[in-house]
């Protein structure tokens, strides 16, 4: 450190920039107009343009000329690099360098959430901070600059990492020698966005990922509306957003799936987001590639888990272990697939890990030239600053690295990191390489000394008469200090010596334990070869295959669509034909094509179903699996959000539901607010991406909710309208009035502000979107039907509807269906009168009745729940079966495609070992569109595969620990099992 300070003082005067009009009182004010030339160097002007024995000429912090033969002016300081290498220094496009921490909003003691904004004169949502000017928070951080320079970086783009819209980012050179007047290259270069709320406000909205997405979309609409001059009041946030429109938009997404989410918004509004990914892109590289976006990628590859405790090991999933095993291949996979990306130090525990992580990527086959590009030309291109940095072409900033050899070679030492023509030393170039084996004599004794490690930070080993003495070595500015301990006698010897420029030996003085001094001489006997041998040991680890999804029960390839003939089954058609014994069903190209006796094969695979039951796949009208968020609870209406935005195709619940015979589900928004969000209706095609799960031409649904949850009765929140059932009605009336007005204005041809929420509500009024409404007691059920009738539409489904039996006649008249629990009650006051006979009574009154789960566990055995309608109220078995197949299909308007076994419908089928309503029944195969997504035999195989893969990965992790690799404590994955009232 001291050395560095000294160094700074010495070179200060060389500062090539000067601010002409600034007075100077601490000495004479003079100019330095000299050139500096670096000769005899291997120069990479760009990662692919190499000049051997070249010269780099710089002046005033910029490149004047570079080439093989550069004419060097007379007033030039020439530095002979003796074959050392020059590279453009790195650019980190994504940091919060020098930005400090934001002021966190104080959490108030009360339990009521804050629904309104804390600011005035800005956008209505506190998490939209587009007016934040990054530079206002900036304070150059020398310590951080130093560690970034040590990792090879010369400039960074930096912003305050806080909020959904975060304001502008700025570009700064890591130049300690000059001040902000010089080193800040761009005051505002980038706009920043993310899905994460700001710490500076407690404003509740958005509480969910889908809410953040909706907010980002609405923000763009509002910006346009403001820009078009339609807003008479002042909104400084929107003004900033408009003013900054030309800048590069950077979106911190953070995972492969969020990349896609960000890209969706980017495409909709033509925002060309540069996406900060999560490092897991390799898992679905096809989808990431399809975004056609530029990426900034972290390389925070996970450390191995410490699995030495077998009990603790069980908490780690095979997916987590794979993550450790596979993640380092991300840069390689991205490169091979031609996805343009830059690398960043973002997400690393510490910047100094950067090179270690990069080494790991190289071990996994990442190309070093590509890495160089990802650190220089790529970020420069993404940020539109290629004329300033990223290469050593003429006129660019003199930001370059001097290294002892090819970049990223393990032997290579980074000597100097020049920023804006200012030298910053990382390792002294003039330090002699003293590594090797020595014989040292002192005071009549002889020691063997081995010096290994880095040139600048060597390690020592001292051996006397075959006994190794623990030792410590320091080497700086030609001086070596070596101390070692004779443990047996508890004696410490200290030596200090100077390294001569020439020759293989050095000498100095030794201070013996008794304080007496003597001379020593160390003579090199051989050079150290150890390092090379170590290199050879580094073999590419075995990489586990990626599965879809990349979790234990994922498939290595999608199940094949097959033509099948089920022979001799008991077929539950769910149609007028009823249940047919000893019947065949043939499917082809994903459709049911034939039902009958002794059907001919027509090339189909024959499945002997003798003694087994074949049914349509189960449909769960009310599910919350396979979603990353369920409630947007930040407003009393959240029609603008859609579960389709947050479908999670990797949720193992999908597989478990398949194992329970479920093939289609409606993922409903929760019940946090009277007007909830839009649904996703999906098929459980395990292994497909989110879009692949969602129904083609999906019917449009939205969740509404009534009663205790929307009143927030059970968690003591008193600040949001409505607090009573009386208020709930008024929420609806108010929103529908507004939607009508909105629609009228829209149709009138006048300009109107696009409002995603009212767009959705208009769809309801127009009969294009259906409501599935969470409901319990008869008063509120009746109320909503009346509201709908007043606005001339129908409620499609009441879900839960536990007091439906009290108003089944009115429901029938209105034409609404009921989707209910089989036997739940007593969990809150409004279900005090819930009875298991509910389904049967509604059914008897002619209401279309479904049994749903609202639960990741119960959905795995909806057949049993359906059977309870036989027990409670005596429904026939065939009608009972329809409550989990055809009836929910009808309620979801997909009964033309699924829900029964009928020619022409999708081949979504379940083969049961037993009567499907029996408590003893098990699905043996669950098929969607002719693809077998669950097969009990395949499942057994996968169990063995998981065990084997775990064993392999555990062994690899143990080896990693043994080999001194960094490990971390086992930690389980985040599980999320949502219910209606889950706030997330």
């Amino acid at each position: 450190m001291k050395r560095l300070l000294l160094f700074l003082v010495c070179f200060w005067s060389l500062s090539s920039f000067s601010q002409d009009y600034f007075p100077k009182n601490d000495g004479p004010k003079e100019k330095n107009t000299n050139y500096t030339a670096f000769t005899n160097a291997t120069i990479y002007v760009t990662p692919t343009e190499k000049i051997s024995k070249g010269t780099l000429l710089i002046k005033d912090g910029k490149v004047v000329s570079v080439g093989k033969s550069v004419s060097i002016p007379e007033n030039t300081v020439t530095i002979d690099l003796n074959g050392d290498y020059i590279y453009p220094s790195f650019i980190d496009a994504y940091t919060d360098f020098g930005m400090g921490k934001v002021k966190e909003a104080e959490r108030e003691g009360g339990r009521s959430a804050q629904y309104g904004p804390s600011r005035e004169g800005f956008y209505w949502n506190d998490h939209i901070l587009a007016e934040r000017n990054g530079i206002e928070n900036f304070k150059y951080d020398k310590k951080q600059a130093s560690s970034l320079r040590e990792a090879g970086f010369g400039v960074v783009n930096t912003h305050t990492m806080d909020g959904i819209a975060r304001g502008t980012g700025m570009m700064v050179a890591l130049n300690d020698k000059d001040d902000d007047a010089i080193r800040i290259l761009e005051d505002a270069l980038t706009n920043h966005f993310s899905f994460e709320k700001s710490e500076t406000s407690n404003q509740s909205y958005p509480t969910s990922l889908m809410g953040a997405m909706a907010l980002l979309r609405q923000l763009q609409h509002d910006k346009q509306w403001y820009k078009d001059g339609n807003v008479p009041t002042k909104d400084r946030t929107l003004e900033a957003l408009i003013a900054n429109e030309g800048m590069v938009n950077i979106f911190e997404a953070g995972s492969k799936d969020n990349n896609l989410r960000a890209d969706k918004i980017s495409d909709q509004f033509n925002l060309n987001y540069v996406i900060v990914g999560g490092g897991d892109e390799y898992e679905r590289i096809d989808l990431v590639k399809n975004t056609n976006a530029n990426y900034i990628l972290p390389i925070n590859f996970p450390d191995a888990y410490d699995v030495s405790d077998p009990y603790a090991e069980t908490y780690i999933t095979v997916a987590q272990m794979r993550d450790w095993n596979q993640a380092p291949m991300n840069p390689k996979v991205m490169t091979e697939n031609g996805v343009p990306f830059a690398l960043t130090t973002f997400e690393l525990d510490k910047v100094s890990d950067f090179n270690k992580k990069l080494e790991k990527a190289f071990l996994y086959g990442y190309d070093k030239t590509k890495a160089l590009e990802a650190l220089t030309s790529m970020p420069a291109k993404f940020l539109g600053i290629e004329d300033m940095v990223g290469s050593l072409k003429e006129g660019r900033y003199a930001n370059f690295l001097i290294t002892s050899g090819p970049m990223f070679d393990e032997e290579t030492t980074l000597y100097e990191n020049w920023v804006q023509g200012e030298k910053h030393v990382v390792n002294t170039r003039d330090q002699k390489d003293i590594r090797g084996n020595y014989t040292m004599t002192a005071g009549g004794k002889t020691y063997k000394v081995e010096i290994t490690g880095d040139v600048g930070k060597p390690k020592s080993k001292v051996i006397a008469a075959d006994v190794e003495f623990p030792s410590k070595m320091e080497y700086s500015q030609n001086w070596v200090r070596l101390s070692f301990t004779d443990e047996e006698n508890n004696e410490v010897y200290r030596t200090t010596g100077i390294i001569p420029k020439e020759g293989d030996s050095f000498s100095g003085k030794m201070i013996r334990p008794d304080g007496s001094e003597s001379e020593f001489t160390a003579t090199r006997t051989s050079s150290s070869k150890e390092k090379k041998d170590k290199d050879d040991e580094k073999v590419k680890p075995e990489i586990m295959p990626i599965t879809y999804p990349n979790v234990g029960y994922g498939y290595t390839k999608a199940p094949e669509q097959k033509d099948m003939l089920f022979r001799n089954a008991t077929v539950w058609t769910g149609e007028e034909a009823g249940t047919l014994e000893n019947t065949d069903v043939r499917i082809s190209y994903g459709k049911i094509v034939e039902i009958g006796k002794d059907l001919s094969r027509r090339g189909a695979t024959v499945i002997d179903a003798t003694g087994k039951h074949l049914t349509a796949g189960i449909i769960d009208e009310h599910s919350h699996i396979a979603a990353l968020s369920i409630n947007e609870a930040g407003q009393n209406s959240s029609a603008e959000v859609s579960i389709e935005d947050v479908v999670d195709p990797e949720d193992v619940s999908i597989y478990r539901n398949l194992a329970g015979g479920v093939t289609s589900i409606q993922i409903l928004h929760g019940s946090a607010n009277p007007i909830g969000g839009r649904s996703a209706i999906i098929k459980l095609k395990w292994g497909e991406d989110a879009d692949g799960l969602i129904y083609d031409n999906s019917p449009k649904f939205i969740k509404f909710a009534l009663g205790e949850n929307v009143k927030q009765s059970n968690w003591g929140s008193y600040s949001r309208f409505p607090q009573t059932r009386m208020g709930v009605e008024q929420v609806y009336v108010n929103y529908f009035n507004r939607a009508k007005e909105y629609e009228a204005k829209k149709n009138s041809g006048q300009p109107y502000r696009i409002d995603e929420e009212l767009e959705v509500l208009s769809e309801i009024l127009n009969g294009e979107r259906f409501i599935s409404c969470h409901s319990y007691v008869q008063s509120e059920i009746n109320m909503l039907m009346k509201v709908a009738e007043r606005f001339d539409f129908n409620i499609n489904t009441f879900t839960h509807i536990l007091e439906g039996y009290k108003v089944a006649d009115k429901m029938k008249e209105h034409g609404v269906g009921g989707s209910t629990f089989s036997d739940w009650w007593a969990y809150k006051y409004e279900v005090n009168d819930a009875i298991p006979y509910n389904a049967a009574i509604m059914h008897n009154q002619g209401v279309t009745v479904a049994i749903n789960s609202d639960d990741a566990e119960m959905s795995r055995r909806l057949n049993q729940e359906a059977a309870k309608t036989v027990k409670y109220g005596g429904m026939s078995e065939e009608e009972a079966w329809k409550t989990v197949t055809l009836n929910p299909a009808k309620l979801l308007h997909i009964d033309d495609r699924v829900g029964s076994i009928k020619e022409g419908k999708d081949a979504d089928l379940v083969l049961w070992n037993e009567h499907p309503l029996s408590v003893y029944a098990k699905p043996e195969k669950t098929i969607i569109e002719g693809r077998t997504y669950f097969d009990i035999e395949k499942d057994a195989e996968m169990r063995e595969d998981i065990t084997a893969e775990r064993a392999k990965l555990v062994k690899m992790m143990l080896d990693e620990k043994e080999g001194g690799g960094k490990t971390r404590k086992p930690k389980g994955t985040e599980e999320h099992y949502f219910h209606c009232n889950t706030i997330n």
Partner: protein
Amino acid sequence: MKNLKLYSCILGMLLSAIAVAQQTPAAEQSQAITIQGATAHIGNGDVIENSTIVFEDGVITAIGNNGISSKGKVIDASGKHVYPGLIAPTKSLGLIEINAVRATDDQDELGEMIPQVRSIIAYNAESKVVESMRPNGVLLGQVTPQGGRISGTSSIVQFDAWNWEDAIVKEDDGIHLNWPSSFRRGRWWAGESRGYRPNDDYAEDTQAVQQYLLQAQAYGDGTDTSLNEGFKATQGLFDGSKKLYVYAHGQKEIIDAVTLAKESGVQKVVVVGGYEAYKIIPFLKQNDIPVLVRQPHALPRREDDDYDLPYKLPKLLAEGGILVGIQNEEMSNFQTRNLAFYAGHVAGQGLDKEKALQLITENNAKILGIDDTYGTLAEGKSATLFVSNGDALDMRGNDLEHAFIDGRSISLETHQTELWKRYSEKYERQKEGK
């Protein structure tokens, strides 16, 4: 203030609703009753086809399939099935009525180690939730306090009584200990991720339990035993008159709990939960530890676990030679009426149906220590049984015609059946043109 008023109002409505709903407890058995011709599922794995069961004064006096003459009132149950009353362990039935209404919640007292807290005195014999157990064959339960480290002391009751005192089958039968977890959930509200992480307090937490038990034992050895109710309540653990129910799922936790309890002088230990118990069957056998395993209607605890592990777990333990019963402590109380279907679901995994029934009858009785009277159909045992029209382990067959507790013919009506009838009547009237 306004809210408080509203609250009291709701409370008042609730209390009045509860007070009027409960079915009147049945009178003592006044004459001998014979159930004739049914398939008798004994509860110990055996079946008697075409059986005759005679009971008098609440006690079974004869059971068999021939040579038994009927006595008193004869119930023809040909083609039907008779089962011993099902037994629900580790539930807070009667301690909480409506989960979300705090005023109805008496299941979890404040305090970490409070063995002296007794569930029985708070047991609401007129609970509508308890009542709803009976039409599904669940006739007995262990009323169990919840929460804390040592939650308190449970008692076993039958589900047809005027008050808690009359309901008692076995008073203060056991103490319930929630064993610490070596891994804990992330405290997401404090910024941690939700996943499991090592619990750094595990050693400290387990030592606290050990200290408590050692202190309690030392207390019992002394003469000055009048002052510490907690220690006093614990004494039964050391002489074997009370059981210690330890709630643990992980293999490490189970091994630690059993080892520590035994070392601390506890005579009878029951493991409750036991998700990983199947991995340490030899240990459990060696220590003679029964397991009240969690109900199969549960999700696997780990992503890589077999999807059907919860379904087959009781089977794995039973086949491993462990004395195993089924409880559903983690579920809402109302779910307890599905006890029969839990057993049925296990049978679906390949366990013999009678063995599956045994999990919720004889085995639960043995584990709770009431098998001298309850849990099987046998001469000399209580006539606590029910007649079902079909297979009671299956939803479609579980259809009770009669149920008896200690020979008393109990009502199978409930708040729910009353509402069913009331609204069926509404629609009947509509059909008849009002």
